[in-house]
């Protein structure tokens, strides 16, 4: 490293009075930070390897460890911040693209936090969800625009295929490969218990998980990994992944080191070969090409599965969504730029795309202006962090939301943002069998069920507070939102008034 020496970001602080040298930290750290010094009989740490994932801290039996941010600093400079300088050092050394994981940590506005929710007072009653029915069931899929009747005048009740969600929350796409077998199994078990859906991501579906097909959305991405007729028919819906919020406009790369036997089989690619997803689908260079893929997939599944088209939130998103709504797709999933990823070029992740709140508001409004909102359901993701985010998304116009980072945190993720290293100490973003077994799928699924159930309670509580007892009466109900600290342009795009107005 020489003159480019980078001082470690963190310091491992060990309270030697508490440390009993049990070496748990050493065994738990896949990054090999901790080691036992035979000479002194004490534990020591190489903090240059620490990613601040808290695994050692969480498992230390005597609470002897903590990780602190280093106070080592460059000369203060508002423009040339330390991280900017370090990035330049790194690239000067490597000549490569900077890699990053999970959603952008940059300080962009989070509009969820700038919207406030209404409640009933006097003129209409709030409703107590413990005493009255409070409904969160949602159907996703195309709605009929004209009622048809048979010869006897009875309504013909056949509809386009629908997804039925007991709670308007789904687990969004994370491929087997980017996350572990046990992480996938946790998601599948939880989706089944909750009456919702999880998403395979682009890595195919492990044969052990076909049994959860009723609660599975299978994804078709540009690499077409693991796509075959059995796979397409295994799930409840098919998602065409056109883009991802964390890295709009670019493809994906799962390094060969992660392509072990199971993954190679599931993805239908040779052992240890790199799995590269092209940036575009090479059969989709235009909207009419998308329509062909949508119908090809419908043909392959005899029109029994809704087709989701997932796109990243980019500048022209409302026109793009309008095109998709006319493509035969049943559901549009929009992924905001704060969404997570297992690996992405840092510059793309931190600079490309737009916030999901603005994308959602403008897409919902555009589809209504064009009278085609009923053609499709809208699912949004890209950093939904709590039940109030869910509520605000639905009030802006979403039918349901996708969550992934929140789900991973429930499974133990501490957001250290080094998924791309493959050494996830929590057994989530890794294929190392020793690490994977740290995540118990039964425990994991229980924690996911707890999380979503808790959110649903909170959702019902807030709905009841505003006198709404069915989720469909909240959908697009923007009068229930007010902006706080937003300027006119933002309010106009969100289609809401400022607090007090």
């Amino acid at each position, binding site marked *: 490293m020489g003159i480019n020496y980078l001082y470690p970001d963190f310091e491992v602080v060990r309270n030697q009075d508490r440390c009993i040298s049990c070496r748990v930290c050493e065994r738990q750290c896949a990054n090999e930070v901790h080691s036992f010094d035979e000479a002194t009989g004490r534990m020591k740490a190489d903090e240059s390897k620490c990613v601040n994932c808290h695994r050692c801290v969480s498992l230390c039996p005597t609470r002897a460890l903590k990780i602190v941010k280093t106070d080592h600093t460059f000369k203060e400079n508002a423009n040339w911040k330390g991280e900017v300088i370090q990035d330049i050092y790194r690239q000067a050394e490597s000549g490569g693209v900077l890699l990053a994981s999970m959603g952008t940590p940059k300080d962009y506005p989070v509009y969820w936090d700038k919207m406030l929710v209404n409640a009933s007072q006097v003129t209409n009653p709030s*409703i107590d969800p413990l005493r009255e029915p409070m409904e969160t069931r949602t159907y996703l899929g195309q709605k009929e625009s004209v009622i048809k009747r048979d010869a006897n005048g009875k309504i013909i009740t056949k509809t386009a295929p629908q997804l039925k969600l007991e709670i308007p929350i789904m687990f969004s796409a994370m491929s087997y490969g980017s996350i572990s077998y046990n992480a996938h199994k946790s998601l599948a078990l939880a989706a089944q218990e909750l009456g919702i859906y999880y998403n395979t991501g682009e890595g195919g579906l492990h044969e052990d998980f076909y049994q959860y097909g009723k609660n599975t959305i299978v994804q078709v991405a540009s690499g077409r990994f693991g796509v075959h007729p059995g796979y397409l028919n295994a799930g409840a819906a098919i998602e065409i992944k056109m883009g991802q919020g964390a890295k709009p406009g670019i493809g994906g790369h799962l390094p060969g080191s992660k392509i072990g036997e199971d993954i190679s089989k599931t993805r239908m690619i040779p052992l240890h070969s790199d799995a590269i997803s092209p940036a575009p689908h090479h059969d989709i260079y235009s909207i009419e090409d998308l329509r062909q893929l949508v119908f090809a997939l419908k043909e392959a599944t005899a029109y029994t599965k809704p087709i989701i088209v997932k796109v990243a939130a980019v500048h022209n998103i409302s026109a793009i969504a309008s095109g998709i709504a006319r493509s035969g797709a049943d559901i549009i999933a929009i992924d905001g730029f704060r969404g997570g990823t297992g690996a992405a070029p840092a510059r793309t992740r931190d600079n490309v795309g737009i916030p999901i709140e603005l994308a959602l508001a403008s897409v919902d409004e555009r589809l209504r202006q064009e009278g085609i909102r009923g053609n499709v359901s809208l699912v949004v993701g890209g950093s939904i962090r709590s039940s109030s985010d869910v509520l605000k998304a639905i009030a802006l116009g979403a039918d349901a939301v996708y969550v992934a980072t929140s789900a991973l945190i429930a499974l133990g993720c501490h957001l250290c943002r080094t998924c791309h290293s493959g050494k996830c100490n929590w057994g989530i973003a890794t294929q190392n069998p020793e690490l994977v077994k740290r995540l118990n799928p039964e425990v994991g699924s229980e924690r996911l069920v707890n999380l979503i159930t808790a959110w649903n309670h909170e959702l019902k509580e807030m709905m009841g507070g505003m006198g709404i007892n069915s989720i469909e009466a909240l*959908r697009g109900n923007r009068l229930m939102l007010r902006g706080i600290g937003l300027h006119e342009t933002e309010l106009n795009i969100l289609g809401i008034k400022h607090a007090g107005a």
Partner: protein
Amino acid sequence: MNGYHQRTPLEGEVRIPSGCAISGIISRSGKRFSGREAISSIAVMHDRSNGLGGGFAGYGIYPEYADFYALHVFYYSSEAKRSCEDFLEEHFDLINLSKIPTTKHHAITDEPLIWRYFVTPLPTKLASSQLDENEYTARCVIKINREIDGAYVFSSGKNMGVFKAVGYPEDVGEFYRLDDYEGYSWTVHGRYPTNTPGWWGGAHPFSLLDYSVVHNGEISSYDANRRFIEMFGYSCTLMTDTEVITYMIDYLHRKQGLSFEEVANVIAAPFWSTIERKSQEEKEVCTYLRNTFASMLITGPFSIILGFSGGLMALNDRLKLRSLVAAEKDDRVYLASEEAAIRVICPEPDRLWYPSGGKPVIVTLEGQQGGQDGHQLPVSGL
């Protein structure tokens, strides 16, 4: 309308929740009676209004012009009247026009010009529009209300009429001389807005074609409903619950051809848990309607009386968060916010009941099909 009132924001500029009193009377045999009973009924519920709006809808009141649309229009200036009449001349044959007769009443002030036109669409215009005459007329009405400042069409059905003003409803009835009209059904509304609008168009009933709605409540689903219905050419300029409810009923009943019972299954859809307990066939239909028209579900408290040609429908929200009473005696059916409002005009009804939340009470004239319904049952929804 903006230029004519400077004091406080009006409907359309601000959303104004309101509590209210409603009442409705129908003779199932089609016997016509004056507006006096409706006046007496609503007067009992004086305290449920606050003098900021009252109004009536009478059906069967214009038998001599039964084939023509009766447009009732408020004008706030003679320029508005000229523009509106130019528009009407361009789109309709004007069969008759006159001021609506009124009496000076001490409690009713600031009245606009109030005119009535009996019209029928110009055949050539209608043909080139490729619309049926109802849709043609509805679009013209919506266009006038949206685009001609100072003109407001507040009634547009055939053989029916809405009469409304700022004031207590019983005074409004006297002002419009409703003793002089005879109809087979009447609905009436007394308003208690939580703000202080001074605009006559904001009073209720709200009406489009021959649908009229009186409503008591404040719906929590308002903006979800509004943003959905506006996809289909409606424009919710008043920002009131009653307006959006009327448009949804118009869309579901007239445009989608749903029966009134089916309409009730959309706007006051049964809970999923209730649907689960129904027969397979009913379950399929209820699920279909609820899913297909999900955004037309109304939540929050409401009791409405819908007037239509040949009948009335009363409906409560699913939790029955507003009072609504029904009664019958001989060929009459009475619907009101309070029992007292029925007993004052019908002291000893044969039957009196409190309809359940979400269960419509549909009353149609004997020997006549209620709209596109085909419901022959005189009263349903017990």
